């Protein structure tokens, strides 16, 4: 409380003691956030720190379990985004929240067209003129007749900002609160400068909550900075006092227990080479990159969104096609852009979104586990139910998948057990290299531990792994070696053997 009280005295919007729990996870734990008039508040925290849940609560997409939202000193309830808009709170989403087929004008006034209506018929001319005037206020030159899908991400953000400002005026809010969720990730350098110029301009009549992973940018463009970690306020400081290193320390925290990632089980790695990537290059995604992964080695790819690490992994899994370069698995060259040959060669890919890409949710555990090895489970030309059962039971026991039976639908399993099912699917196909894209995302603490253990065991059995994790701690804790990427370039290779784990701070300064 001590943090929030001082700030909330003259605040326009204040969140008090916001708590939100999901099954198995406390997303927010008594979070305080106060936003003053004409102020830009920077909100920083690692992935999973609770920023996005907090934002969803602020715009009525989620309800807090405990705590209150105060607007100008009065408690308010936000049941849906429209309620938030009426109270002058709006959000510009990272991936946009406008209807792509409709024009800029139509999107600007969507659902609030009454002022342009005469006996139920809109005046298109006055709508267009208002749209132009509105955009001119922000010094924007966008063709208001173009469909939003055609104007580019930067222009889309500006239009959304214009819409929120207009709506708050419509509902008589003189100092609206705009929430910008990682607006700069989709922007080019020059567009970023434009956005910040507009931010400085709208600060005269609005408050802004600015979320970004680029800490330097937050320091330069906000008045005050709030740091969230593990769903709690860590601290709050004036941007003028803020130092990059200090914030990074606060974000990552100090608590670091060695056994959390079962580091005692970490192998030496660097055995026989399994994967060799040579001068792999994909225009617009990453620059030529070369590295190897050895038997039983866990290599972590580290970098921000847009660093190119996801694309590198997709190229190895055959989901995307690199322009030049080559990929060798066990010394044999893999054809590019063919997921089926990658699978046959022994590359397993565990995608970030297991519910839509990793698993057939409507199929049983057994069907999922057996999916890649159906050929081996045949008796003659037909599948043998007995062999299918045997293979599934073997892997369910092996990976300790907690399921009522092997014929249970995967949709009914918990996140952790779904993830173990995905992993066992690959193990069953005798995979050589596993790419794990955020393997513990959306998984509770207990299941996380089991997944860590499983990974350690796989490494012992000689499977090579490339991982991209939710937090830096996880990356450092799990890996033998780390490859740090930034803006499509491999910046540095960092050793992460159990005795000499680097500190998160030293890594974070390399990636931002």
């Amino acid at each position, binding site marked *: 409380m001590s943090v929030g009280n001082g700030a909330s005295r003259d605040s326009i919007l204040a969140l008090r003691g916001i708590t939100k729990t999901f099954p198995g996870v406390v997303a927010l734990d008594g979070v305080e956030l106060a936003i003053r008039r004409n102020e830009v508040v920077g909100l920083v925290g690692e992935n999973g720190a609770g920023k996005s849940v907090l934002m969803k609560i602020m715009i009525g997409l989620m309800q807090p379990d405990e705590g209150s939202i105060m607007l100008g000193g009065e408690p308010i309830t936000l049941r849906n985004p429209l309620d938030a808009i009426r109270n002058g709170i709006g959000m510009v989403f990272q991936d946009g*929240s406008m209807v792509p087929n*409709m024009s800029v004008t139509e999107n600007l006034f969507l659902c609030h067209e009454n002022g342009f209506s005469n006996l139920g018929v809109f005046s298109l001319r006055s709508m267009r003129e208002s749209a132009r005037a509105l955009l001119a206020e922000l010094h924007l030159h966008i063709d208001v007749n173009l469909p939003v899908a*055609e104007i580019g991400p930067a222009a889309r953000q500006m239009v959304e900002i214009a819409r929120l400002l207009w709506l708050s005026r419509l509902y008589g809010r003189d100092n609206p609160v705009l929430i910008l969720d990682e607006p700069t990730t989709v922007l080019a350098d020059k567009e970023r400068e434009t956005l910040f110029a507009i931010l400085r301009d709208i600060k005269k009549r609005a408050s802004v909550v600015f979320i970004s992973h680029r800490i330097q940018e937050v320091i330069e463009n906000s008045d005050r900075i709030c740091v969230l970690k593990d769903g709690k306020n860590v601290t709050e400081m004036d941007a003028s006092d803020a130092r990059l290193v200090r914030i990074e320390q606060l974000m990552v925290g100090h608590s670091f227990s060695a056994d959390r990632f079962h580091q005692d089980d970490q192998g030496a790695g660097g055995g026989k080479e399994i994967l060799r990537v040579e001068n792999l290059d994909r225009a617009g995604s990453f620059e030529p990159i070369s590295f190897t992964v050895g038997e039983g080695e866990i290599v972590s790819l580290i970098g921000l969104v847009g660093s190119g690490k996801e694309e590198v992994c997709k190229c190895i899994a055959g989901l995307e096609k690199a322009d030049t370069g080559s990929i060798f698995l066990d010394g044999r060259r893999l054809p590019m852009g063919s997921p089926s040959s990658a699978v046959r060669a022994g590359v397993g890919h565990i995608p970030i979104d297991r519910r839509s890409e990793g698993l057939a949710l409507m199929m049983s555990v057994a069907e999922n586990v057996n999916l890649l090895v159906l050929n081996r489970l045949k008796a003659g030309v037909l599948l043998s139910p007995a062999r299918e059962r045997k293979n599934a039971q073997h892997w369910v026991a092996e990976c300790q998948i907690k399921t009522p039976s092997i014929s249970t639908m995967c949709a009914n399993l918990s996140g952790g057990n779904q993830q173990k099912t995905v992993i066992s699917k690959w193990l069953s196909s005798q995979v050589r290299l596993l790419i794990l894209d955020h393997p513990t995302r959306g998984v509770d603490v207990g299941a996380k531990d089991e997944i860590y253990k499983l990974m350690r065991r796989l490494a012992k059995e000689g499977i090579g792994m490339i991982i991209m994790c939710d937090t830096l701690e996880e990356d450092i804790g799990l890996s033998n070696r780390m490859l740090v990427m930034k803006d499509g370039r491999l910046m540095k290779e960092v050793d992460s053997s159990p005795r000499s784990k680097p500190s998160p701070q030293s890594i974070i300064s390399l990636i931002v």
Partner: protein
Amino acid sequence: MTSVRARLGRLTLLRKWFPGPVVAAGVWFRRSGVAAQILTLVIVVGVFAIGTRGKYLSWANIQVILSLAAIPAIFAIGLHPTIVLGGIDLSIQGVASLCAVFVGVLLKNQFNSNDVGLWIIPISMAIGGAAGVVCGVLNTGLRIPSFIATLGMSWILYGMAVYVGRAVNVQILDTRIEKFASATLFGVPQIAILAVLFAAIVQVVEDRTRFGRYMYAIGGDEVIAKQAGVNVDRTKIAVFTIAGIIYGLGSLLLACRLGVATSRMGLTLLFPTVTAVAVGGVALTGGIGGAKNAALGALIVTALNDGLVLMHVSPYIQQAVNGVVLIAAVALTIDRKKLGFIK
């Protein structure tokens, strides 16, 4: 923003070569949403004008095309909003059959003493509308995909139509509607004028009312529309209801033109109507295309079939041509790159 800049660049280049009004007209034409359809129509007309040595362009033949296109256009105008929503309506055959049976039973006929006169217009539209409400409620309330809900409804309604009409051909003795439809005004068939007016009204509703906006917002992105405050369920039910009402009007006109009302009347309507909507450029992925597209689509399909008849092409080949046209139209209107996979 880059795309905007690229566009402006291209425009300035055009301005160098053409006078201002021509460029403005070109931009307007491209943005009208029916540019491809008008070009298609011009090509179809051109090919047949040459193929028939001008016979195709005689005023008598143009009158035939216009009057034949009117009723398919009305059906297409009814169907297209359900596709704009991102769904589809397959109930048209059932609805039209049921309406036709009621038209036969209620208008002056030789089987009973009923004679509701012009009241048949609201009655037929109300029957269609009631069927549409049910489709809409099935789709939103029970959350049944529109494909299945309306397909099921089509056969339920057709069954009712056969049961009520006992598969009898009822001669329509009240010829007032037929007379109005086949009369001409300044040489243009009145039924075609009716269809054009109707398309214009629906187009205005789509462009310039809150309901129309909501329809396109849902078709573009239902989740975002909902977050912006669109009452999605109510809009969907309204769209299916309006579709039903328009089918009611269409089947009344069709029965009157045929002079005979029978439950079988609806059975051949679905394919040409869906073809017209697709050819008109209404994207099957939702959110794009309006009444003008639906009406133009019907005109293109009718003009094509009329030309094939004039060229003495076998009717079986004509059917096959229509199938090709449907697939080609969808291939050209849908941006399939945006779809993850095709079901």
